[in-house]
């Protein structure tokens, strides 16, 4: 046989515009009960959770801002974002973006769709847009619902991660910015979901991959001793980097790095998904997706993005090691202590001292000085020194045990003296509250290179 396929000079068939394909995909997605349930849950769940949890005797202190949920409703809205970043966003993207292509395989509707739309490119664009749209239906729900729940609890000033107080307006503004920051990693995970959905076809692995991928990244970044550049090169880091908005000045380096890295992952994963989809053969339905294809076209290229991003971050920021050292902790702890000491003074003795008067310093040691003085761990012990206001040449001293997370967040636990950082109740504007110097959250800038305290 020597004949060849006719050249493509025939009149182009009528292709369905992307807008109509997009509407078609939205109709199909929104017809699924689990998608509708998810959207409703996003709009209702956070408000209920914030109201209920804020009224409990024990607050979720393990979650960032969790210990402040009774103090101000803005903390509740931030707990929603923090929790969602750790666990919910990867799951959300799994259910929506991770299933948008696989669903057609399970239902056996690909051929029907291809015949109806007559353009693989338009099908891909419509499906990607529709899944992002459904995600965007969920995200404002989470944000608004969390805020509404918080407003029911009460709109009061929020204690930042360096101890300074943010007015409700500032807290609201930062909260909005934080939500904008997490859009980039959500896009990245949605793109990974699209890629998994294209690669694994009808296999449920595609549906679960973004959720397990997100979980794996969280666990890896918490458990494995990664250099800071490698840690920041994961899209999951950007789910947490918004924390830097709640210090003064804000820690913009990790935030912008996280966004840039996430966008790189999003673009790469989307491009891979597109290329694979355009090569797909719709006459053969026997392929359930293969692990070999997943490794070649999914895992290896994304590992490449990870390595490349890590190299760029390391080169651009000069960040090495864990990004956590004694100098950074000392500076952060001293700043937080000064701000919170001022709050405590006002609540206990109604004195109005300033941070400048306190001239606070700190000295931190890891593992009693027997190990390297850098990196995360719960064996950091710090001494805080400050000038006692109104007393000449008198210096106060307090001890804190620090549990430092690999992502830069730490919990400072007062270890004496009791009258300074022990547990006792003070009269806060919203009622009785624990001593603000007893336990508090702090944050170090992983990319900061000026580590002198």
């Amino acid at each position, binding site marked *: *046989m020597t004949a060849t396929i006719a050249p493509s*000079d*025939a009149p182009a068939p009528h*292709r369905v515009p992307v807008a109509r394909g997009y509407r078609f995909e939205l109709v*199909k997605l929104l*017809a699924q009960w689990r998608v509708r349930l998810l959207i409703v849950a996003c709009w209702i769940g956070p408000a209920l959770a914030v109201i209920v949890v804020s009224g409990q005797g024990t607050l979720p202190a393990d979650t960032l801002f969790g210990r402040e949920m009774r103090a101000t409703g803005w903390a509740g809205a931030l707990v929603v974002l923090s929790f969602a970043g750790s666990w919910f966003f990867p799951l959300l993207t799994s259910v929506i973006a991770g299933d948008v292509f696989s669903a057609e395989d399970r*239902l*056996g509707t690909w051929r*029907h769709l*291809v015949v109806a739309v007559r353009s693989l490119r338009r099908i891909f664009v419509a499906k990607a847009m529709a899944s992002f749209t459904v995600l965007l239906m969920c995200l404002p729900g989470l944000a608004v619902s969390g805020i509404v729940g918080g407003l029911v609890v009460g709109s009061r000033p929020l204690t930042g991660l360096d101890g300074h107080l943010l007015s409700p307006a500032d807290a609201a503004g930062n909260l909005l910015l934080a939500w904008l920051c997490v859009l980039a990693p959500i896009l990245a995970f949605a793109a990974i979901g699209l890629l998994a959905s294209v690669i694994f076809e009808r296999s449920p692995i595609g549906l679960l991959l973004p959720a397990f991928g997100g979980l794996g990244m969280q666990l890896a970044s918490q458990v494995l001793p990664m250099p800071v550049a490698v840690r920041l090169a994961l899209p999951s880091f950007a789910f947490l980097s918004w924390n830097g908005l709640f210090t003064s000045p804000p820690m913009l380096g990790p935030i912008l790095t996280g966004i840039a890295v996430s966008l790189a992952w999003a673009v790469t994963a989307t491009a891979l998904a597109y290329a694979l989809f355009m090569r797909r053969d719709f006459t053969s339905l026997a392929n359930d997706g293969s692990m070999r294809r997943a490794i070649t076209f999914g895992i290896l290229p994304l590992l490449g993005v990870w390595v490349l991003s890590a190299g760029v971050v390391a080169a651009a920021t000069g960040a090495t090691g864990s990004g956590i050292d004694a100098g950074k902790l000392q500076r952060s702890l001293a700043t937080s202590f000064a701000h919170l000491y001022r709050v405590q003074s006002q609540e206990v003795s109604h004195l109005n001292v300033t941070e400048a008067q306190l001239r606070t310093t700190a000295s931190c040691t890891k593992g009693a000085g027997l190990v390297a003085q850098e990196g995360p761990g719960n064996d950091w012990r710090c001494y805080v020194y400050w000038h006692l206001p109104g007393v000449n040449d008198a210096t106060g001293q307090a001890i804190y045990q620090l549990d430092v997370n690999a992502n830069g967040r730490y919990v400072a636990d007062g270890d004496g003296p009791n009258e300074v950082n022990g547990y006792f109740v003070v009269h806060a504007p919203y009622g009785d509250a624990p001593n603000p110097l007893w336990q508090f959250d702090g944050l170090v800038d992983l990319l900061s290179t000026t580590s002198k305290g």
Partner: protein
Amino acid sequence: MGSTSAVRARGLTKCFGDVVALDGVDLDVVAGQIHGVVGPNGAGKTTLFGLLLGLAVADRGTLEVLGTPVGRSLTAPDGVAGFVDGPGLYPSLTARGNLAALASLRGPGARTAGIDDVLEQVGLTDVADDKVRGFSLGMRQRLGLAAALLTKPRLLVLDEPSNGLDPAGKKHVHGVLTQLAADGATVVLSSHRMDDLEALCSEVTIVATGRVVFSGPLGKLAEASRELDYRLVTSDPEAARLVAADTDGVRVVDDAGTRPDREVFVVRALLPALDELVPRLVGAGIAVRELTPVVSPLESAFLAITEQQESS
């Protein structure tokens, strides 16, 4: 290309890795006819239908559909509709919802136009607002046909449209397809139900291991095939047996003693021998009450191909 051809394929070849799904297939389908494609599982029917529907492109060969050369892009010309491996339906939508969603792809004006008509044509008006999740296979087939009809096709490609149909459903589908052809549209369909194809099709193509082994009118197939078994009912079975046994080219193939209905017996013959048998029976004063093939010519050809494959 002739103006009456809806499909013209020459030397179509399609491989999937080492597997040759289609091997130099030639196909001509006359416009306004119902054309059947039969063959054993794995013969290449689905691949051929996929090429017609624009789901794949051939590796070699030329294909013209509705007068338009099909190029390397994955798109069929306008006016082509149908399904392979069952219709694509969304179970979370109602029957009407499925059709409306499909119609919306063609524009806002087309969203509802014609939906009630096609639902009525396939006999699904009563369940139009039920979720497809609860539909039987036959109902899904009919809804798939309705979805294809919604696009007002000039070439309808249907893979096994009779699967799961009850007699009423079959009647609806046959009626729709016949009317469609009468209105000038071309239908290409496959089925393992030979009686369906014989009832509907004017021409058939038999495909085996990716090659066309027969293509043409059904009558020509009967001539070309091997001897067939015919069920013969007469007014005098005993005498008829003797006449049949005495006719050249005719063999009585069942034993009268084993059949419960002694008036019936089966003869094996080619058509010319059968043409000789009938006047001889009449001449002997025996009334011929029924003479029908036990296995249809199409099924016989199909079985012959299958047996050939098994033996090779």
